[in-house]
């Protein structure tokens, strides 16, 4: 199964969840997603998703200057983002429950 295709539909929720846990900059979010097991997630997909969620008003953003190199842009979740995350969490649980049930039945049969 092409997990990158599966990931597309749920990347928003995954990114929101990671940022809700703790503020993070672009690659930091990528790293945490990968550490959580989404090893195939693309850097640019995550960065783009962060920008889109920010534009949509789900995230806050602030820049932290860096001594060693270029500055870093951190993202944090806000109330709207949390509401969105809650919705998506419920939707995912329903969907995954349905699909799990479906696949389990088929596998058993």
């Amino acid at each position, binding site marked *: 199964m092409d997990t990158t295709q599966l990931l597309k539909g749920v*990347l928003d929720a995954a990114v929101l969840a990671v940022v809700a846990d703790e503020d993070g*900059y*672009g*690659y930091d979010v*990528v*790293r945490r997603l990968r550490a959580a097991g989404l090893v195939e997630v*693309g*850097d*640019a*997909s*995550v*960065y*783009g*998703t962060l*920008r*889109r969620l920010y*534009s949509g008003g789900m995230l806050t953003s602030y*820049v932290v200057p*860096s001594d*060693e*190199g*270029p*500055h*870093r*842009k951190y993202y944090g979740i806000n109330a709207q983002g949390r509401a969105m995350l809650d919705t998506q969490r419920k939707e995912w649980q329903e969907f995954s429950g349905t699909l799990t049930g479906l696949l389990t039945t088929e596998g058993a049969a």
Partner: protein
Amino acid sequence: MSTTLTPETVVLDQVRRYAADVRAHLADLSPEQVDDLTDGLEADLAEALADMPGSLRPVAAGGQVPDGGATALLDVAARFGPAAVYAAELRSAAGLDPAAPGPRPRIGLRGRLFVLGGIFGSGWKSLWAPVTSTPQWAAFLEFAAVLRPAWWVLRAWVVVLVAYGWFHRPQNFELVPQATYWRLLLVVAVVVSVQWGRERWLRWRGLHLLRKAVDVVAVLVAVPLFVSAAFGANAELNGLRTSSGGSYQQGYDDGVRDARSGIFGASGVSADGTGSGVYVDGSQVSNLFVYDASGRALQDVQIFDDQGRPVRTLTGEGVAQAWSLPDFEQGWYFQPSLSTDGRDRWNVYPLRGLPDDAVEWDGSDRPVPLEGEQPRSMPAPFLQAQSLLVPSTGGTAPAPDQPGGAATTPVTPEAPQVPADGEDPAGPPAEGTAAPSARVPGTPSPAAASPVVEVSTGAAPSGD
């Protein structure tokens, strides 16, 4: 080149190049969008690379970059994929439309125009095929080919004239610019254009299109230019000048001069009330002063031509514009007389008028006297003119053979049949004005006296 660099600077350098490459693939977005998408990109890339030790082996090995960093750059691309793909992913994840630069093959604007041109071009050609396949067309092309050098000269001339007109805004059209350096430029342009046409100079590919564009523009300019030149031929030959309306006015003046006999031999009220008036030696007359046979100045004299049309010195805009009088600083607005039926009369001389500060604009098409102001007379050129030797009865007596001797009765409203005449100013052609007016000095035409009065009420439709 072999430069000692720390691994960090090399990585950053490569990362910057890669980031710049990504930005280049987002160039169709607004700068703000690009900034928003790629802000902090270098930091993220650098850190991602640092997370994968070994990906930059050539740099890490000795701190030396043997080939200017190309190997390291390759590693950056190997880690993140081609910049174009990276940019496309960034763009689509951010919810932006995938644009022309992307993984798909690029046709480019030029390619598309080419394809479009091919589609239209072939359709256009087949449309004209019935014409272009004839031997006559071939003959025409052969003929046109002979004229090409003339066209090369003409297009240079047109381009220079347009540029000259643009920069100098000359009052009159100049076939050959007055300024010397513009003449020089004309010569240079002709040489360039001819050499260009002979394909001796300027043979770059891009200029092929430019040449077509210049040709099209030159045709678009040259045709109207020739048309206007043809219509303004009079003025053109009299010193190569024409201006908007000038040539027409000049032609009209010439006609007036030819037809004129006496002071107001040729006055006209044209259908739209413009382009007419009274002229003496080519200059327009604003006011007329009338003296009787004994040389006395007359006031409030109505003047008509042989067809019963009011002779108006002021027509069209003339009734609303300020005139300048000799030795009088203010502008002067002429005012009409009023007939008993309440209509303005502009053929009553000498016309009275008012200076600037005694009139107001009340929204009508001409200024009206301020409250309490009365139109004033202008000083006459002579208090007394020379007496005439004509029999004293000739000039002033009412026409003996007309009923009622109506000439002395200024205005009588009963003249029902006349409006038809009065409304037909274009009526009999110009010869009708010229011939009878030539007769005027000889005999104070008895037939003229009576119609004058009747027309004075009847010609109202054109006398507003």
